């Protein structure tokens, strides 16, 4: 047998039908559903008199729209649109008999945090969700990607997806990371190096010592942003850390089934000599703590650098860079560490896990914020509870952070947590597009440590100076 990549193996194990032109029906093991991209899909099922083929493999949780303020049990804190969408999900989950974590459930949270936390996401699975950051689940060695509403309906009805296979790309991060450098810096640096279209047409496998050294939380952060690099999905081969993370989770296998599962999971790695269509190698020790300066996730620079000029770029990027500089209101040559920040947002499916909160709290301990507004939005109710138990919540509150309930919050301007026009935010989320966090809002992406450091000084800051 010819050697296979991890992606080849998972793909081959899920092809339920292949047409002559190579179009496949890929069987889906887990379908995650949230309130924004699903209503028309359920509506479509109703109109056609269809049911959900595998309700047991379908998990729903509202996250994008839900307020994260403490008073959210009161539905009047939601806008009309949000209330209608959340109510629709309540009803659809009930009518079609799928697993559901309502807003009132402590396990509610961002769909990509809830899936792994509850043990729904396991190695070797195919996972889809009507959301582009489904790539997150690739950290477990699961083939996971986002789909559109018509595909949501297709998966609900048939438990398959019509797909053509992508190409294989390897991103290797060699060696060790320097102190102060995190998974977020890895993933941003990769996008900075390859561009937002660098992964287009590919499924990326992240590997190398620096990736192996990451915790599961860190691996999720890396895979989460594979989509920002244009890839269909990001993958990391499962290992003992993965098994350890999964063990004992509510929906992970138990007993003999667990043993069988682990035995299978151990076969999920890229064979020696398997072919990759594209390879990118980055030295771990070359990665610095980074921030974004522009309005594309590829606009990445080490915190020690200065704002670039538009003509530092080539071709179409010159105009785009100028537009970014204007939108971000930045002057070329300004040291990044001189940029003053109004707001700090720690959360999202990229960096809303317990380890992220620990890292930020570690920097904030005993300090006060110097920004107008700072908020922490845990990725799930369980992350929130654990952070309270560990005393992290107190550190945040004493520093002057708002301690919120779980949801997508200020990652996207779809709920009341939004930036005002011109407001500048240090954010741990994944997209710095124009208007992403609110019309006219300016977003700098970075790691939780770097966001905490910015909160303390009121400007973009090299966290290494505080360590």
């Amino acid at each position, binding site marked *: 047998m010819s050697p296979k990549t991890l992606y080849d193996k998972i793909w081959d194990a899920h092809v*339920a*039908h292949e047409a002559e032109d190579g179009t496949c*029906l890929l069987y889906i093991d887990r379908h995650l559903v949230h309130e924004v991209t699903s209503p*028309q899909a359920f*509506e479509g099922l109703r109109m056609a008199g269809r049911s959900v083929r595998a309700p047991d493999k379908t998990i729903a949780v509202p996250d994008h729209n839900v307020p994260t303020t403490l008073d959210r049990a009161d539905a009047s804190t939601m806008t009309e649109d949000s209330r*209608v969408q959340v109510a629709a999900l309540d009803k659809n989950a009930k009518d079609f008999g799928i697993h559901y974590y309502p807003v009132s459930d402590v396990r509610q949270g961002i769909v990509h945090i809830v899936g792994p936390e509850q043990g729904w996401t396991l190695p070797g699975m195919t996972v889809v969700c009507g959301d582009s950051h489904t790539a997150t689940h690739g950290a477990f060695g699961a083939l996971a990607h986002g789909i559109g509403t018509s595909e949501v309906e297709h998966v609900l009805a*048939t438990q398959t997806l019509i797909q053509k296979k992508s190409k294989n790309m390897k991103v290797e991060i060699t060696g060790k990371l320097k102190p102060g450098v995190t998974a977020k810096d890895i993933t941003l640096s990769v996008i900075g190096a390859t561009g937002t279209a660098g992964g287009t047409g590919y499924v990326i496998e992240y590997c190398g010592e620096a990736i192996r050294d990451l915790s599961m939380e860190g691996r999720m952060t890396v895979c989460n942003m594979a989509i920002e690099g244009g890839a269909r999905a990001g993958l990391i081969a499962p290992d003992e850390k993965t098994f350890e993370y999964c063990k004992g989770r509510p929906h*992970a296998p138990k007993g003999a089934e667990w043993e069988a599962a682990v035995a299978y999971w151990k076969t999920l790695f890229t064979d020696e000599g398997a072919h990759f269509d594209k390879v990118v190698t980055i030295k771990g020790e070359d990665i610095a703590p980074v921030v974004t300066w522009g309005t594309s996730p590829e606009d990445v620079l080490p915190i020690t650098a200065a704002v670039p000029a538009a003509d530092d770029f080539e071709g179409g990027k010159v105009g785009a860079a100028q537009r970014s500089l204007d939108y971000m209101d930045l002057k070329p040559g300004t040291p990044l560490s001189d940029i003053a920040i109004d707001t700090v947002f720690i959360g999202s499916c990229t960096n809303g896990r317990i380890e992220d909160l620990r890292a930020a709290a570690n920097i904030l301990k005993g300090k006060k914020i110097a920004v107008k507004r700072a908020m922490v939005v845990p990725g799930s109710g369980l992350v929130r509870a654990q952070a309270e138990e560990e005393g992290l919540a107190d550190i945040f509150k004493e520093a002057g952070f708002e301690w919120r309930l779980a949801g997508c919050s200020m990652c996207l301007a779809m709920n009341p947590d939004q930036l005002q026009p011109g407001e500048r935010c240090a954010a741990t989320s994944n997209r710095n597009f124009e208007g992403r966090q609110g019309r006219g809002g300016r977003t700098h992406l970075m790691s939780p440590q770097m966001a905490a450091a910015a909160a303390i000084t009121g400007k973009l800051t090299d966290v290494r100076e505080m360590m």
Partner: protein
Amino acid sequence: MEKFTTLSGIAAPMPLVNIDTDMIIPKQFLKTIKRSGLGANLFDEMRFTQDGAEIPEFVLNQPAYREAQILVAGDNFGCGSSREHAPWAIADFGIRCVISTSFADIFYNNCFKNGILPIVLPEDQRDILMKDAEKGANARIEVDLEAQTVTSSDGETFTFDVDPFKKHCLLNGLDDIGLTMEKAAAIDTFEAEASAARPWV
């Protein structure tokens, strides 16, 4: 998806060129959680005043055309965004067929996914049908997808082209989901084998 075999219906004339998806369904109606019900807002800004009163001159508000099932339209129908709300709104209103000289690509494909037959005809033939449509409810246009013909109220018949696969799907009411369901046996087999091999999934 509803099948499309033959249709005999009233055709509404819309000679305007470049009717875009914003005209078909303005963006304030996209926040809905439904794909049904959009027919009430089809061509909203052309059909109603700001305060919701009907604009009597608009073709679909005229008594003869309130039950129209066919549109005969100007060039480049359906240009603009990829929103599937446009064909949803058209189908929900009850229109099953649009005849024009040309369509925007995404809209054209979206029609087939939603049980609507878009027919491309040369300008002179479209114009004959446009005149026909202007006669109001007395003129019924006949469409036969199997035979790939459109027949005017005077009995003049034109043939049209359609991709054989799209035709097959529409004739049999097969959307992507319907097509996949034709392979249910393969999915069943796969599912049984997979759950034996990986019972924990």
